[in-house]
């Protein structure tokens, strides 16, 4: 399990940035400043984790890439987003999916009244290829998510949370993407299911060469499966590094894993310390 990610990471670092977000500022409703200049890169074939607390701007970052922001009255007001050397920040989600960038939204968002299989088939909407090819993709998804195959004819609304998350990821895979933006896949799921899903993500990454940018609150799990991580706070990247380094970094441990050395700190102290630290760095 450990050999695949390192090889993927090393080949990735050799190539130029694949997806790059440059100094992006996002404003909702013309007044609410959510991202204050976020920059990050995802290498080809990499898994990059975007970590941070509630409201830090993780989802907004993903949505600014997939351009689902517009539907929520958000706008990228500064900066640029490039994918494979082309600017993508003005493209519609439809164009982006055709180019290979697709987002799996937070909270799964399956089509409740459609069956699992119909859900998966809608994922292939943007592809103009033969039925045989779509059938092949469907079989591929079923090999990765064998649970979905057994539930293929049940309405998605009646399946379990884990199955819905798998359905949402499978649906995105049906679009034959190169880059999946995965928003909070662990939300509301049992730890066992979370592991199962992350294992599948890792598999998809190493066997199907799909790159992932994943936003997670579950820092520990995310850093175990990612190659690289960014930590977002109040709409700014405050720290970045190799996943392994981040996982052992004392600050990260303290603030995001809750593994502080010298007992519990009060919120006020922590905030104070954090703020000072940011000014200096």
């Amino acid at each position, binding site marked *: 399990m450990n050999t695949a990610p390192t090889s993927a990471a090393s080949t990735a670092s050799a190539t130029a940035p694949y997806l790059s977000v440059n100094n992006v500022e996002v404003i909702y409703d013309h007044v609410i400043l959510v991202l204050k200049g976020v920059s990050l890169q995802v290498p080809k074939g990499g898994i990059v984790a975007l970590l941070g607390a509630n409201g830090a701007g993780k989802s907004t970052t993903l949505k600014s890439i997939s351009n689902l922001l517009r539907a929520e009255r958000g706008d990228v007001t500064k900066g640029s987003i490039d994918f494979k050397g082309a600017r993508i920040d003005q493209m519609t989600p439809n164009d982006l999916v055709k180019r290979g960038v697709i*987002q799996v939204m937070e909270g799964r968002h399956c*089509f409740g*009244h459609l069956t699992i299989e119909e859900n998966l088939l809608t994922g292939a*909407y943007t592809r103009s290829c033969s039925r045989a090819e779509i059938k092949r993709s469907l079989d591929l998804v079923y090999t990765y998510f064998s649970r979905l195959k057994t539930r293929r004819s049940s309405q998605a609304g009646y399946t379990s949370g884990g199955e819905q998350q798998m359905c949402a990821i499978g649906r995105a895979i049906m679009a034959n993407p190169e880059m999946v933006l995965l928003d909070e896949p662990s939300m509301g799921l049992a730890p066992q299911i979370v592991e199962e899903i992350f294992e599948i993500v890792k598999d998809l990454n190493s066997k199907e060469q799909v790159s992932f940018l994943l936003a997670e609150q579950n820092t520990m799990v995310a850093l175990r499966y990612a190659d690289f991580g960014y930590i977002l706070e109040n709409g700014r990247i405050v720290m970045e590094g190799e996943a392994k380094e981040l996982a052992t970094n004392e600050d990260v441990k303290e603030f995001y894993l809750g593994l502080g050395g010298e007992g519990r700190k009060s919120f006020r102290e922590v905030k104070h310390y954090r703020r000072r630290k940011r000014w200096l760095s």
Partner: protein
Amino acid sequence: MQFFLEVLIGGLLSGVLYALVALGFVLIFKASGVFNFAQGAMVFFAALTFVGFQEVLPGWTGLEEGGSAVFWLAFALALVSMIILGILTEKIVLRPLVNQPHITLFMATIGLSYLIEGIAQGVWGANVRGLDLGIEDVPVEWLMESSNILVSKFDLVAAGIAGVLVASLALLFQYTKIGRALRAVADDHQAALSIGIPLQHIWVIVWGVAGFVALIAGMIWGARNGVQFALTYTALKALPVLILGGFTSVPGAIVGGLIIGASEKLAEVYVGPFVGGGIESWFPYVLALLFLLVRPEGLFGEKHIDRV
């Protein structure tokens, strides 16, 4: 017994026409979650546009008045107008309101209905017009001879057209890629957007199809009652149909229409005399009210799925 059958069949056939109007509501509700209050106005607009073109075309093109060439050309032009109306609705009304609460969209369609009525009458005038489809409103002969039951030929043909329309729409929704995308959009706008389904295209398609259905409904209703402003109120008869059949089901619209049509006629004939008549106009609403108490999602409507 023979009289009962006559009333029943007459009721069922008029029910098909209610279903036709209800179908327009279902299409738009299914795909965009919007209860389109403007559907009645669209029926009116479609019928008036068709009749209007039928009047002016002989003058413009020199075609023979009342000929089949004029009929089909007027039909085509009316259809194009409905599709353009659909596209404009999407561009001007729906697109700026993506992801707004349903009530906002509903209010927008109320405004839209006034706009459409106004435009229709502004362009074509407010006179009552006759519409001749070339189908006679006479009893079907073989039925009359064999079992002595009077059934209008017009009603039968109209029901046939509606039946074909419904069957093809049901198939479209269930088995095609577009149909699947339509249902997906109905379930969750944002998720549909996230997997690259272009909402705009879908809405244009839906409003276009709803316009087509409105045109057919308008032509049939117009041929029965004359093309006039009151056509917009036929849409109100679609409400109990929808409540009975379910807002999201194409077959539901049909079954609901049949039940409403048959029951209102039967009630008028058999219950009416005891309460002084005039039941027909309010009986469907009472039925709908009772239905809401027992089965609010309708006979075929989708149950609201909640995770607990």
